[in-house]
């Protein structure tokens, strides 16, 4: 049984065109998959469908053999931790309190228990946020907020982690650290799926890429195959170039 199995997955907003159109894919952990594609290709919608936050109009999205959108929310969130694209803004709680929201799927008691606090400490440690625990979330920078939300997802201790543009507000140092953390999660046995516009970083760090174009999955494979330059040029309408430096590292650049 696959950890994630997408079969003929289709989604439309109202009577409009299909935002996600007949996607067939599957994945098992551990792994680090990037979902890439132009704006409006359906990347975030696909992530929402996997997270069970949207109901497909056709097809199915199965997690460990169960239909995601039909699972009880708490059970689903013990399997999948989802960090949405839009960072909540005016949250008057502290970093510690935000991270602890990751423990909601494990119990509806009024107060957190020792297990919850242990998971929170580990998440704070992994995201280097120990010194931020008493800081107000609303007073943090965009990048710090993104790290806190990632910590909350880690605190959720789900075997699958879905991240929608997690490095959108990060500087190069924090972005590099975030990718290292995602690789650590993969090494810890998790299946990590990331929506990103950074094709170069996806090529560098991910072991698999899903390329979307107008809701369709046009490539699914290892980065050097899925992100083949001619295909990227057709999808993004801009020339792409693969380079290799003297140390053998490959880079992906684009532009006319």
């Amino acid at each position, binding site marked *: 049984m696959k950890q994630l199995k997408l079969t003929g997955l289709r989604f439309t907003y109202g009577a409009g065109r299909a935002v996600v159109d007949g996607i067939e894919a599957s994945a098992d952990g551990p792994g680090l998959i990037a979902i890439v594609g132009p704006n409006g290709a359906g990347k975030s919608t696909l992530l929402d469908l996997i997270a069970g936050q949207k109901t497909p109009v056709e097809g199915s999205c199965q997690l460990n053999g169960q239909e995601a959108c039909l699972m009880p929310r708490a059970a689903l*969130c*013990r399997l999948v931790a989802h960090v949405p694209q839009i960072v909540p803004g005016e949250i008057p709680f502290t970093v510690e309190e935000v991270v602890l929201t990751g423990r909601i799927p494990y119990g509806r008691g009024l107060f957190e228990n020792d297990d919850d606090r242990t998971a929170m400490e580990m998440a704070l440690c992994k995201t280097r946020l120990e010194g931020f625990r008493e800081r107000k979330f609303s007073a943090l920078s965009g990048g710090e907020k993104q790290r806190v939300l990632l910590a909350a997802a880690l605190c959720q201790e789900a075997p699958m982690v879905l991240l929608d543009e997690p490095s959108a507000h990060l500087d190069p140092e924090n972005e590099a650290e975030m990718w290292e953390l995602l690789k650590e999660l993969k090494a810890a046995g998790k299946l990590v799926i990331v929506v990103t516009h950074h094709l170069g970083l996806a090529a560098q760090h991910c072991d698999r890429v899903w390329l979307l174009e107008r809701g369709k999955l046009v490539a699914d494979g290892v980065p050097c195959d899925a992100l083949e330059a001619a295909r990227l040029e057709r999808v993004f309408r801009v020339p792409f170039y693969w380079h290799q430096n003297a140390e053998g590292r490959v880079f992906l650049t684009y532009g006319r």
Partner: protein
Amino acid sequence: MGDDLRRRAGRVLLWSALGAAAVAAVCPFVGGSGMDYDRLWRGEGPDWGIFVNLRVPRTLLAFLTGAALSTAGALYQALLRDALATPSSLGVTAAAALGAVAALALGPGDEAGFPVVWVAALVGAGVVIALVAALGQVKRFASFTLLLTGIAISGVCTALVLLLHSMAGLTKAFQISHWLMGGIDAVEYSVLGWLAFMLAPVSWWVLRQARVLNVVSYGEAWAVGRGVDCRKITWQGFAAGAVLVGTTTAVTGPIAFVGLIVPHLLRRALGPDHRVLLPACLFGGGAFLVVCDTISRTVLAPVEIPVGVTTALLGGPFFVWLLWSR
């Protein structure tokens, strides 16, 4: 942090309960007309009768009403993630008033029985809150738009109340006018019993949702990803708020601003965590309305100001200050 929070929540619960109990214990002894305490201690009339049959039930009614309205205010503010969400701004109070006034105006006798008015107020509150919740979830209205919708609904309900008032006979029109001013009157202990019977389980349910309400206040996208069924909690919360507001409004008439002032003052003092805030709102709201009612019946004694006037005079400037400092 967890143990600290548990201890803090326990402390706030204890102190707010003790504070409310102290207020409720003292206020019945305060009144516009002098009371002979010797006769009262000996249980002799008329002081004993006034104390037991008028002041104590009135204090208890003020406490129950204040607790319900304040808890409903905090609940709506969490569900809509908007500081200005209250039973009044969502149109729930006006709808409950319309239901109750319809029962008073169209009822068969000179005075409609209390179950009829209760049911009518609950139906009014329930219909409006269902409409607001449906607009929020089906049409995906933002909280600001829902509040504008609530204001529009409130205007329509007020117009219909005035229409019913103008069409009612003299006796019923007076009865409606008195009721609309929002007042805490002495009621039978059986009515208080029924009120407590309806409010206690709903309030308990609201308190039990405190941790989930914290996450809901982060926004739907985040809450859903943490395992919260936002659609369900919103419907349940709106229904709970409608019961809290509808049942109390049926007995007291519309009392504005309690659901705004108390949660905001306490939020500023205690922070945003609903595990601390909601119990404080429950007891603090009760104590606040007991104090307002005591002011209403003593400050211009022997003339008695409807408590809705006192809360509005306090709440109006507070509302402006809140908008100013947002």
